[in-house]
């Protein structure tokens, strides 16, 4: 059954993305899990959980349903079914998180969870262009409820990101030195790549990932983003014998593992070495690949 959640805050992340903060937490939610959000008379779609203190969902306006969500205001309600699916399971104590485009949403929840456990976290974000880089400030924020880092006291910490003029990813590394003492730590390192070079390093995120692995081998790589990015990362992780956990996207309908609508296409499945008949909605969305070595 659906539970109703009331919107308490709406943050604009970019030209087509908003984060909705709700009035309470979703019991039992783990990073990497998702919810089905229902608007009566409109429809129901899956969304990764971007945070749960309280529940936060990041919504990119890409169709009629997400556009309807974007029209909602503070105080209005959203019906939520979940948490659903298999989430991430922290493996080791040094984590490399890789987000492509709006795939950053579940990784923010994961980063906050890992940091709260005292682990170290590095993040690579890849996007087409500067304005598609999402939640970068939130990863650097030390306030667990902060989704865009635009609060007054954080401005000095995030200047390198918010000006978005830098082409040098090391600018972000410098933020580590400045982070303030807080109950929640900021991530250790944030590397940004854009395909057109308008923010961070120019190129694909896999290059930043290679560099991050070379600089400090993580215990596990966690990723969410488009399938081509994940298949490339799967090859990379296999080459380095690195445990990895990727969150996959598919056309989700029932969310209960019964309708069979959400199999990955054969090409993607084989490229990423996934088992046949794997159901994104219930076996996933996260596929955990941890080999004993």
């Amino acid at each position: 059954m659906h539970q109703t959640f009331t919107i308490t805050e709406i943050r604009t992340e970019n030209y087509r993305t908003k984060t909705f903060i709700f009035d309470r937490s979703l019991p039992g939610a783990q990073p990497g899990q998702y919810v089905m959000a229902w608007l009566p008379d409109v429809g129901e779609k899956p969304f990764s959980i971007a945070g749960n203190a309280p529940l936060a969902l990041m919504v990119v306006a890409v169709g009629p349903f997400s556009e309807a969500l974007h029209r909602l205001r503070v105080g209005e309600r959203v019906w939520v079914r979940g948490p659903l699916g298999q989430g991430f399971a922290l493996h080791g104590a040094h984590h490399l998180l890789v987000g492509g485009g709006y795939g950053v949403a579940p990784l923010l929840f994961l980063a906050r969870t890992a940091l709260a456990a005292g682990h170290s976290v590095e993040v690579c974000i890849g996007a087409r262009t500067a304005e598609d880089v999402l939640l970068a400030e939130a990863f650097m924020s030390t306030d667990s409820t902060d989704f865009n880092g635009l609060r007054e006291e954080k401005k000095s910490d995030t200047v390198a990101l918010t000006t978005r003029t830098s082409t040098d990813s090391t600018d972000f590394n410098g933020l580590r030195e400045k982070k303030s003492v807080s109950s929640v730590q900021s991530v250790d390192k944030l590397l940004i790549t854009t395909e057109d070079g308008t923010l961070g390093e120019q190129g694909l995120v896999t290059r930043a990932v290679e560099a991050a692995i070379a600089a400090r081998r993580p215990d596990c790589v966690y990723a969410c983003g488009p399938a081509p990015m994940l298949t490339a990362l799967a090859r990379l992780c296999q080459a380095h014998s690195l445990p990895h956990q990727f969150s996959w996207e598919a056309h989700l309908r029932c969310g209960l593992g019964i309708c069979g609508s959400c199999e990955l296409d054969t090409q993607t499945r084989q490229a990423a070495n996934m088992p046949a008949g794997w159901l994104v909605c219930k076996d996933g969305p996260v596929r955990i690949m941890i080999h004993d070595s």
Partner: protein
Amino acid sequence: MSDLTCEFLNLKLRNPIVLASGILGTSADVLERVARAGAGAVTAKSCGPAPRAGHPNPVAVEWDHGLLNAIGLSNPGAEEEARMLVEARARLEPLGVPLIASIFAGTVAEFGDVARVIAAARPHLIEVNISCPNVADEFGTPFAALCESAAAVTEMVKCAVGDIPISVKLAPNVPNIGRIAAAAVEAGADAITAINTMPGMVIDAEAGRPVLSNRVGGISGPALKPIALRCVYEIARSVRVPIIGTGGVTTGRDAAEMLMAGATAVGVGSAVWTRGVAALGDIAAELAAFMAQEGYRTLGALRGVAL
């Protein structure tokens, strides 16, 4: 351990637990996975004459005692389905798991057309879905509602499929399911599958709206079991053909009850929601344990003891 081997028509199943139609069954990969998980046989999702996208979300919701769904018979159309079935059969044969196809259509003539296309893929059994509760607006009253229409479809399909046996899948919401079953058997049904989901509705009180986009859907899961047991019992008293008893079976004990009501095989569907794909094999193992505990050595000893 007791013997779970199940003779069903000309088929020999390693156990009586059958993946019900409409749950998974959308691809050769998934059917193979369910077979490897321990199913005695697997049923593909129903296919019709043409591709259908199905209903928009929400298509399924869990409630206090089960599920309500209206997926809307999404399927790739008979031609594409036949190709999938050929591949699925090739994958299942080495595992010794029979493949059951499932068909639906909007008219008696279309049932014949779809049956011919599907029969060419040589599934071991063809289930004739005359009872989907979720497409009434397009197809009118379900064929399962009347003896005459149930018989007409059965006869048409039987003529179209050659030597492949057929099982007619009945609806629970009829005044006398035994009479419908008798009409289908009289018209040539080799077996009966009972039951499809029970039409129902879930309303969200805060929203003041039915949850499913189709407004109504089919009730499945634990809430359906007593209804299914009653239907299987009535059918078993009315006809002599084997029955795939389906509806709310979640444990091996539930499966035993279904066999006691007169079923020869037991369909499992919504249990996949609560117990995962492993449900099929787990329920079979639980059934064997129950039989051993109660001193039933074969399925034959169990079948129909409650009649």
